[in-house]
Structure formats: structure tokens, C-alpha cells
């Protein structure tokens, strides 16, 4: 158990460093949310709800974290494949899920850049006050939000083991998850069937945790607990799926096919 924890921790550190040196990832994480934050600021400011600007900042932040995770995690296995190390990693005595898991969490962790850039962008360009009702809980809510989104990415990465264009699948889930998890658009505005789906997705609870900590009236600790529960569920589901899909890929001898 200690060995696995060490592998995950070291993997996380290495991959965060690695991703932080990738211009595309850093750009996608820091600038892309600013685009949506800017649009949301203009739309809410031009519309009827100017008080929603801070909420738009937070929503754009979580959107950025999900964006980088969905494409990065879905492409994680393919990157190992291109680097020619996938077979070695799978054949190693270390369970492969312990290798893949830190990659996806690291991908969502660099979403921290999105958090900082979006909040500063809103503060300095649009004058949105950064007044947080429960600042300590807000800070406490960030790690479970990021980890749970990263683990949702882990499930996605596990499913696309046999799919060579994993990034395309990840790309496909960017907008739908933004929409259904209520990051900028309240789920109440969506058709009724969307809400139960939103409960199963980590960005919903991460966003609620940040929002409820930033404003009064919510239950951020419950939201954080939901992030933790979903994280555990995603880890188990991802590990099981990964085992199944890896076995299938090995049986068909397609593991290293690019």
C-alpha cells in the first residue's frame, strides 16, 4: 500500500512538472477559460444579472479544469503509446492503474493555473470583487474538486484504452459536461433528465463546493464530501474498466498499435 501511494505521489509530481512545461497545456489551461470567462462577463453584464459575475469566474475556472482534463486524460494512454513505453508500463509489476491515475490527476492539477488566471482576470479587467464568504473552506474545496475531476478523467482514460484517437473522445465531452454540470448555466434551465446525470459528475459538486464557500446559504462541506465519494467511486470503476480493456487489448495484440 505504501509502495502504491509512493508511486502515485511521485507520478503526480513528475507529471505536474512535465505538463507545466508543455506550452499547449499551459495555454489551454490559462487562456481558454479566460475566453469563456470574458464571454460570460459580457453576457451577464449586458444581461439582467450583473451580480452573477463572480459566479461566472468560478464557473469558467472549473470549465478550464475540465477542459484540460478531458482532452489530456483521454489522450494519456495514447501519449504513452507514442512514446513507446505503454507495453513496458503494462508489463511492469506495478499495477497500471497506479501509473495512469497520477497522470490524470496531474492533468487536472494544472487547472490551478486556470483558477488563478481566471480570478485575476475578472478582478483586474472587470473589477469583480473577490469577496469570499468562507475563504478557508473555499481553499479546502479546491483539492477535492481538482482530484475528483482528475479521477473522472481517469475513468475516461480507462475506457479509451483501445481507441487510438482518445483525444477526440475527450474533446467531444468538453461542452456536454460544461453544460450538464451547471458551471455557467443553472441545471434548472436544462431538461429534467439532465439533473440526475449532473449528480454523477464531479464538476457539479466541485463547482457547488466553490460556489457555496464563496457565497452564503450553501452546504460546501456536503459538496466536498460528494467530491470525495465520487473520487473513490471513480477510482474503483476506472481500475476495473482499465483491467478489462487492457486484457482485451493484450488478447488482440493491439496495445502498442498507434
Amino acid at each position, binding site marked *: 500500500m505504501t509502495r502504491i501511494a509512493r508511486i502515485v505521489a511521485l507520478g503526480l509530481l513528475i507529471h505536474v512538472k512535465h505538463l507545466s512545461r508543455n506550452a499547449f497545456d499551459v495555454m489551454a489551461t490559462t487562456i481558454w477559460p479566460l475566453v469563456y470567462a470574458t464571454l460570460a462577463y459580457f453576457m451577464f453584464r449586458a444581461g439582467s444579472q450583473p451580480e452573477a459575475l463572480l459566479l461566472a469566474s468560478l464557473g469558467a475556472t472549473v470549465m478550464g479544469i475540465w477542459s484540460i482534463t478531458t482532452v489530456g486524460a483521454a489522450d494519456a494512454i495514447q501519449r504513452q503509446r507514442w512514446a513507446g513505453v505503454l507495453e513496458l508500463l503494462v508489463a511492469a509489476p506495478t499495477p497500471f492503474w497506479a501509473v495512469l491515475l497520477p497522470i490524470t490527476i496531474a492533468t487536472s492539477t494544472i487547472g490551478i493555473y486556470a483558477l488563478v488566471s481566471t480570478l485575476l482576470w475578472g478582478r483586474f479587467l472587470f473589477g469583480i470583487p473577490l469577496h469570499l464568504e468562507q475563504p478557508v473552506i473555499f481553499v479546502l474545496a479546491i483539492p477535492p474538486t481538482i482530484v475528483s475531476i482528475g479521477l473522472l478523467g481517469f475513468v475516461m482514460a480507462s475506457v479509451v484504452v483501445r481507441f487510438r484517437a482518445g483525444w477526440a473522445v475527450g474533446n467531444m465531452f468538453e461542452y456536454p459536461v460544461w*453544460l450538464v454540470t451547471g458551471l455557467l448555466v443553472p441545471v434548472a434551465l436544462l431538461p429534467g433528465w439532465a439533473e440526475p446525470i449532473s449528480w454523477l459528475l464531479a464538476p457539479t459538486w466541485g463547482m457547488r463546493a466553490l460556489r457555496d464557500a464563496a457565497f452564503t446559504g450553501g452546504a460546501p462541506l456536503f459538496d466536498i464530501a460528494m467530491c470525495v465519494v465520487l473520487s473513490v467511486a471513480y477510482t474503483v470503476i476506472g481500475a476495473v474498466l482499465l483491467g478489462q480493456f487492457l486484457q482485451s487489448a493484450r488478447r488482440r495484440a493491439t496495445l502498442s498499435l498507434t
Partner: protein
Amino acid sequence: MSTLRVALVGGAISFRGLFGWLHPAIFVPTLIVPPIFQVLFFAYLGRAAGLESDTFYVVGNSIQLAALPGLFAMSHAINGERRSQTLAPLLASPASRVALFLGRSLPVMAIGLLVSAVSFSFGVLLLDVELPTRALPTLALAMLAATFSCTALGIAHAAVGLRVREMAVFSNLVFAVLLVFCGVNVPLGDLPSWMSGAAEGLPVTHAVQAGREVVAGSSFLSVAHLLVIELAIGAAYLAAGLVLLRLFERDARRRATIELF
């Protein structure tokens, strides 16, 4: 005749060889599903903000989405050749650069029009948007004009691919500029004046304006000038793109960086 053959046959072969998104397993998750959800996302965001009607977002976003293949596929015309190690022989050939790159742009324009039409159709169906049927032909022309201007912008920005390696980053940036500046989701009047001023010189802006006016009941003749401006902007970007291609090609030859990636 030879130039025409290079443009049409060469363009078609190059597109089939380089446009890696042609396979349905990639085409649908990149060029069909995200555009439809872009339309839905902004329509619902507009409802949340209480800003404009669904029609506003369906028309605006579906026209702007012509930029998706226009930018990414055209940048791949340079980067894909480089990755396939065929860029140097291509540039060493005596073929007309205009024929080479215009030929590569024709299939991209067809895809751009398809993306616009599909995202518009699904937007209308899923959001129950009601439109006058007589507006559709002119709306299709607005999409075609935007497809041309966005592909022309794509050629200009593909030229930068001779100097910049991370073209995906650059393509995303240009796409974002069009999304924010061109009145696609926020009326131009609600944007700061410097942004709406800049939008006047960008593709998409006038096509979106024409599309919205025609859907609101204007005739073709009353929006024709907007379409002409959109086409003129496209022609300007095309000319700039061809000049940039020549300049950057010369520079890349001098620095021996044509094949670096």
C-alpha cells in the same frame, strides 16, 4: 491547365492524406458533436443571462463554427506536410503556391459549410427555433461567405506555421478571438468600442450580422452589402496569407527551418 490540375487534384489528394479527422471516429467527436454543443451551450447561457433569444445564438455560433475547419485544417496543410516530411519537396517544386494552397482550401471550405449547416440544423431542431423558410437561402449564402473568409484567415494563419511550431495553440487563440470579438454571443453594441471596432476587420462579423438580419425578415438585397464586405475581408486575408506564405517560405529557406518541428 497545369495550375488548375495542381489546385484540384493536388488539393483533393493532399486533403485525403493530411486531414486526419476524416475518419468518422474522429470527424464526429471533433467536427459534429462539439459544434452542436457549442450552439446549445451559448443558447442556454444566453437564457441564463437573460440577454438574447435562442435564434441569436443559433445563427451566430453556427456561422462562426465555419472557422473550426477553416483554421485547424488549413494550419495542418503546413504542419501536416512538415510532419510527413513532404514540406521541403513541396516547396522545392515549381508548382504555383497559389494553386497549391488554394487547392488545399477547397475541401476545407466544403467541410466548413457542412459544420455550419449541421450545427445550425441541430440548433434549430433541439431549441425549437422558428425561422422564416425564405430566409434560409440567404442564410446559407452568409454561411458560405463566412466559410470563405474563415478559410482565407486560415491560409494567413497557416503561413505562420512556417515560423511557429505550436500551431494548435495559435489556432485556438484565433478561434477564441473570433468567438469573443465578432458579436457571435454578445451583441457588438455591448462590447467595448475597441473590440467592436476590431471586429469590423475580422471574418465572421458581417456574415453573422447578415444572417441575423435576414432571419429577422430582411431581404437578400438589404444584406447583400454585408456579404460583399465579408467576402472582401476574406479576399484581403487571402492576399495577406499568400504574401505571408511567400515571405515565411523565403525566411524558412534562409534559416533552414522548413523541416524543423
